[in-house]
């Protein structure tokens, strides 16, 4: 099952509590968990170092594993079958409890004997901050406590021996990992820990039961919504791109990035998905986070911010082996320093969408929104790093200009509504940008929009021109661009991001869902439906996606679960369900 100690990324499922996420392997190992928050240092980091921290709970000897989320929840159930019987492991992160004093963070693993008698083992191997902080481990009264400075971890076990035990049908064993940060440890009673798992399951089922989507691919849409809810950092409303860092875009490659931040670019897709599903509270919280975060840097905005809205994103390379030798392992993200003009389009689109839905600007101040649009109208001519955050020379990306158009168009519309002060310069600049795109951004020789003027490349991100209002999906030029993207970048249902990407990374799953969305908007429903079916079938066994896929093998690549993919899935399904009027 494992290669050199590493599990295929497809074999991970995620559990979480609205503050952090754990990755649980199909073989019973919790291999990734940052505490107390999703952007904190990990205590389990085995996905990046086979000798790293983990919490194992699995049968001793050969077994087969089958798993699922309990319907409508983020509570994971893995059934292990051995020659001697079967057990079910239920994994969940629990919530703040009002009945009893609850730990700051808690991960509970419950084993129920189903058939026969199964020999199991567990190992608690904490490693804090990639081993940069040394934990003092002590055992006391059936507990293992590991502590350093402001952090402490305790593993409580009940009916699970000291690491080896046997379980018969009808018996139950439980492990609870608790974490304290800047406070004393809270050590749970068994009943309380088990009750909190059921309460967590009940909450998730209630939450998903309220989703307002009855269209096709409902199971996939609900699972995506649950995955997005896992990625939401509840204290602020931010939704992280993924809860992991440095899972590689190519095995052995160096395109390994830290995604434990909120990207403004994802905002437009986030708002549309959340509002389409009836998640108004989450949409409002995300919008507030976005406005709160950008206030520190406006009118210039960074592509990404910390979950608390901060800007401490310095990138550091760690001396770790990396997933299957994919180095470097990075924490922090240098892309925060880049000029990415395409960020402004989604930001203003989000504002527009929020205002049209709620009739309010929420936390946003008209003066600040206007300052963003002023910045775009004066700076759109600059080259930038683009949507893919290129670390090479800045270029004049056509998509970046199109998103600048979107930003100014939305600002102008908000001015029409009397929400923003009127600036004639916005409409004038928008028209100038459109002229630039249709003149310089159109590649006459190849009959499509190009990645950047004077370059031969094609880029799948151009599909977003139709998703963020710049282009009409039925327009001839856009239709021709779709065809060129499919011709040059498609491998089966998958799309590479740009020309030549196949030599450096996998196919980018989000782009495939964007293609579905664009086809749906173009009225090409049959093609869109066929592609959607193929893509929904390409999720892993519990319905999650990583950022990329190797089209040849179906192997997952990149960080996971990836929010942008799940957002794109929801939006594609909504567009298909809405038919000719996807907005």
């Amino acid at each position, binding site marked *: 099952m494992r290669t050199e100690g590493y599990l295929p990324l497809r074999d991970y499922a995620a559990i979480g509590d609205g503050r952090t996420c754990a990755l649980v392997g199909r073989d019973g190992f919790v291999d990734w968990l940052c505490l107390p928050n999703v952007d904190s240092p990990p205590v389990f980091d085995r996905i990046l170092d086979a000798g790293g921290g983990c919490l194992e709970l699995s049968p001793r000897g050969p077994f087969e594993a089958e798993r699922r989320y309990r319907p409508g929840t983020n509570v994971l159930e893995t059934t292990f079958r051995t020659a001697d019987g079967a057990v079910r492991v239920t994994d969940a992160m629990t919530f*703040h409890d009002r009945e009893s004093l609850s730990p700051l963070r808690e991960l509970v693993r419950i084993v129920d004997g189903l058939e026969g008698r199964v020999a199991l083992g567990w190992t608690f191997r904490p490693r804090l901050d990639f081993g940069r902080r040394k934990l003092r481990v002590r055992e006391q009264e059936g507990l293992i406590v590991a502590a350093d400075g402001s952090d*402490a971890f305790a593993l409580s076990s009940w009916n699970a021996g000291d690491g080896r035990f046997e379980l018969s049908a009808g018996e139950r064993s439980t492990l609870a990992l608790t974490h304290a940060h800047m*406070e004393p*440890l*809270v050590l749970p009673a068994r009943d309380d820990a088990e009750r909190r798992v059921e309460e967590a399951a009940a909450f998730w089922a209630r939450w998903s039961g309220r989703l307002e989507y009855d269209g096709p691919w409902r199971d996939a849409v609900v699972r995506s919504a649950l995955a997005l809810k896992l990625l939401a950092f509840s204290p602020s409303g931010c939704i992280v791109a993924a809860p992991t860092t440095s899972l590689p875009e190519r095995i052995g490659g160096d395109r390994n990035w830290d995604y434990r931040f909120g990207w403004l670019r994802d905002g437009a897709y986030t708002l549309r998905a959340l509002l389409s599903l009836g998640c108004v509270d989450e949409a409002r919280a995300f919008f507030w986070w976005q406005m709160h975060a950008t206030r520190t840097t406006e009118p210039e905005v960074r592509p990404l911010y910390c979950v608390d809205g901060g800007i401490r994103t310095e990138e550091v390379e760690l001396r770790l082996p990396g997933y299957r030798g994919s180095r470097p392992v990075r924490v922090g993200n240098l892309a925060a320093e880049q000029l990415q003009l395409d960020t402004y389009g989604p930001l203003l689109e989000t504002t527009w969408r929020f205002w049209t839905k709620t009739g309010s600007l929420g936390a946003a101040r008209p003066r600040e929104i206007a300052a963003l649009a002023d910045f775009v109208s004066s700076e759109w001519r600059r080259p930038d790093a683009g949507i893919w955050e290129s670390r090479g020379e800045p270029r004049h990306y056509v998509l970046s200009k199109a998103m600048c158009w979107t930003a100014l168009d939305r600002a102008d519309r908000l001015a029409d509504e009397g929400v923003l002060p009127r600036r004639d310069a916005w409409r004038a600049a928008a028209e100038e940008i459109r002229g630039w795109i249709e003149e310089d951004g159109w590649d006459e020789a190849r009959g499509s929009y190009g990645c950047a003027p004077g370059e031969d490349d094609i880029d799948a991100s151009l599909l977003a021109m139709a998703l963020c209002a710049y282009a009409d999906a039925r327009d001839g030029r856009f239709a021709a661009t779709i065809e060129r993207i499919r011709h040059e970048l498609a491998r089966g249902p998958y799309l590479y991001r740009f020309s030549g990407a196949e030599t450096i990374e996998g196919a980018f799953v989000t782009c495939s869902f964007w293609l579905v969305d664009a086809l749906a908007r173009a009225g090409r429903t049959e093609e869109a439906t066929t592609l959607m079916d193929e893509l929904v079938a390409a999720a892993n066994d519990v319905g999650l996606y990583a950022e990329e896929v190797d089209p040849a093998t179906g192997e997952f690549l990149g960080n996971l679960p990836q929010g942008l993919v799940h957002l794109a899935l929801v939006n594609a399904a909504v567009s298909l369900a809405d038919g000719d009027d996807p907005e």
Partner: protein
Amino acid sequence: MILGALAGGLVGTVVLTSGSRLAQHLGWTRMDIPLLLGTIFTPERGRATVIGYAIHFANGLVFALAYGLIFEATDRAGWLFGMLLGAVHGLFAGGGLLNVLLPVVHPRMGKPWTDARSAPVLEPPGFLLSNYGRATLAATFALHLVYGALVGLFASL
């Protein structure tokens, strides 16, 4: 002198509480006094923190009153004398109050006589508060020195 001591107690408690929080942020200790005090009365974290802060500030004033009475009785006050009292206070807080008395009165903390009928959930301080981090005792002692000095200083003004 009493009123001055009470004013010093208020300022000193603010400094002590802030210093304690800073020590938590710096990773010197996991001792969270408001949470420890508040969870005596409620398991709900938010309410416990508010109650804990209120109790801690009340304690700060009660101890300041005691300092003031000592200043009155000895007819002397000043930051150095206050700091001396703070040292005694710090040793009492670290060595007896938090170490011995808190687990005894805390319904959610284990004690030597806790039996099968109850299940304590809150980590006890351990010998000389060492369970909450090795620097806990030193930080507690140092912060009480500052508290005492401030009470003494204000009482002498």
